[in-house]
């Protein structure tokens, strides 16, 4: 098997993990890859000798996005809580207890205590956040118009992770031949060839886009409006899918604010204080810190650096000792007037400012099992009390 070694000496060390994440999207001719942080090279196993030259060109093109520039990625840590944690393989433990079942790449069924935890999170966010901000509950479709994603600049920020939705062409001959092929040979991706209509929808990659498109043309009264919703979302992340920490299909809860800049900024700060309080109460080991999105575009450095300078994205990251890293379970985002302008939502004579906070439920559950194990009687006191109160209220 041919192997390439591409030097990455010019890459800003702060960007190495982002480069490693992005490598999965470089070429279908790559079988596997690794980043050698000591010798500063990317090692790539390629399918064939013929493909080597093209793969090398593509890897070099990607590497250039992360090379030194004026922009760096400074992290500001607002909160840190350390604990002595055991190393628990939560994924294996959850599998053994049948509290999760993988059902395809990055797709997992949750049940038992894992499902119980997700229900607790939903209820806790209702009382701790949605009520505090008088957020109005909305319910969204699982899919979203590609046109809407275009207007939110999603295709020019994260084009790599969109799961498009398609149906068969509305044509009797096409539908009949598809049905016949599936009857005779069983389903395979081959059966789609030449039979699919064009893609006008994608599975929603984020919860709050529906909120903005649903409010198109609205004129708000001061100070603005708060909305909350929960949605199953999709992001394709290639070889990066693993455990419950990076799912392709996951559940996102959001609280969104649209209105006067002061209202959005103050609400966001209040929500950040609440999430730090929550992390303290449940004795979660991790940090609340500045972050940036994994923009998969040539202008990555500019966008990422600006997000960090402006503290436009912050994340609560919880330690996963078994993986030797932390995962983001909550993010706080400030959008400025991007969505107000895109969807003509205004307050007075100005486009509204917006911001949101979001929780990834499966990641929360995974972090809790990773830090505290599977016996809820041994969990931190406040977490245990919250779970017991929730179960009592549910009649469990």
């Amino acid at each position, binding site marked *: 098997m041919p192997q390439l070694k591409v030097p990455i000496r010019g890459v800003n060390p702060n960007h190495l993990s982002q480069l490693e994440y992005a490598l999965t999207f470089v070429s279908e001719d790559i079988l596997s890859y690794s980043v050698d942080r000591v010798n500063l090279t990317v090692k790539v196993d390629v399918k064939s000798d013929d493909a080597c030259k093209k793969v090398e060109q593509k890897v070099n093109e990607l590497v250039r996005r992360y090379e030194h520039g*004026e*922009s*760096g990625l*400074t992290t*500001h840590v607002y909160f840190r809580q350390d604990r002595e944690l055991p190393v628990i393989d939560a994924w294996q433990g959850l599998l053994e207890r049948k509290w999760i079942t993988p059902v395809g790449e990055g797709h997992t069924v949750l049940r038992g205590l894992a499902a119980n935890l997700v229900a607790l999170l939903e209820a806790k966010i209702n009382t701790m956040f949605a009520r505090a901000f008088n957020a109005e509950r909305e319910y969204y479709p699982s899919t979203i118009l590609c046109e809407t994603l275009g207007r939110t600049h999603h295709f020019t920020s994260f084009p790599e992770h969109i799961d498009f939705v398609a149906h068969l062409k509305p044509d009797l001959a096409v539908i009949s031949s598809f049905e016949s092929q599936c009857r005779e040979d069983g389903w395979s991706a081959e059966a789609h060839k030449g039979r699919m209509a064009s893609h006008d929808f994608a599975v929603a990659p984020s919860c709050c886009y529906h909120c903005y498109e649903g409010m198109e043309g609205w004129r708000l009264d001061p100070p603005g409006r708060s909305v909350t919703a929960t949605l199953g979302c999709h992001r394709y992340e290639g070889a990066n899918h693993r455990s419950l920490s990076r799912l392709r299909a996951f559940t996102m809860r959001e609280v969104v604010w649209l209105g006067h*800049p002061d209202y*959005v*900024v103050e609400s966001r700060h209040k929500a950040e204080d609440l999430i730090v309080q929550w992390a303290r109460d449940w004795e979660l080991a991790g940090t609340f810190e500045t972050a940036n999105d994994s923009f998969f575009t040539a202008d990555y450095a*500019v*966008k990422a*650096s*600006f*997000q*960090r*300078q*402006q503290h436009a994205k912050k994340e609560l990251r919880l330690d996963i000792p078994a993986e030797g890293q932390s995962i983001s379970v909550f993010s706080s985002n*400030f959008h*400025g*007037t*991007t969505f*107000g*302008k895109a969807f003509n939502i205004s307050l007075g*004579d*100005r*486009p509204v*400012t917006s911001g949101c906070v979001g929780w990834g439920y499966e990641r929360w559950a995974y972090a809790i099992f990773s830090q505290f194990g599977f016996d809820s009687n041994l969990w931190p006191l406040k977490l245990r009390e919250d779970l017991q109160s929730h179960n009592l209220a549910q009649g469990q």
Partner: protein
Amino acid sequence: MEINEIETRLRRFVRQHYSVPETDREFSDTVNLFNYGYVDSFGAVDLYAFVEKEFSVSISEADLVTMPLNTIHEISTFVAQQQTEKP
């Protein structure tokens, strides 16, 4: 250069470059240009490039993270300090 002169030049640039109408009552030297949506991520690159060229100062990554450089007044104060500290 006096801070008033810096503010005037900067205000003129922001109004022209980011199409801020004269009727915008919220626009001022102390409004947060980013929070209020006058300047976005790409606009910020233009803004800082203008400041560096127009006033012959340099803005480092550390400055952007540690200094409040979000309003016309804050940026002007920073420029005035940089110019004073120059040998």
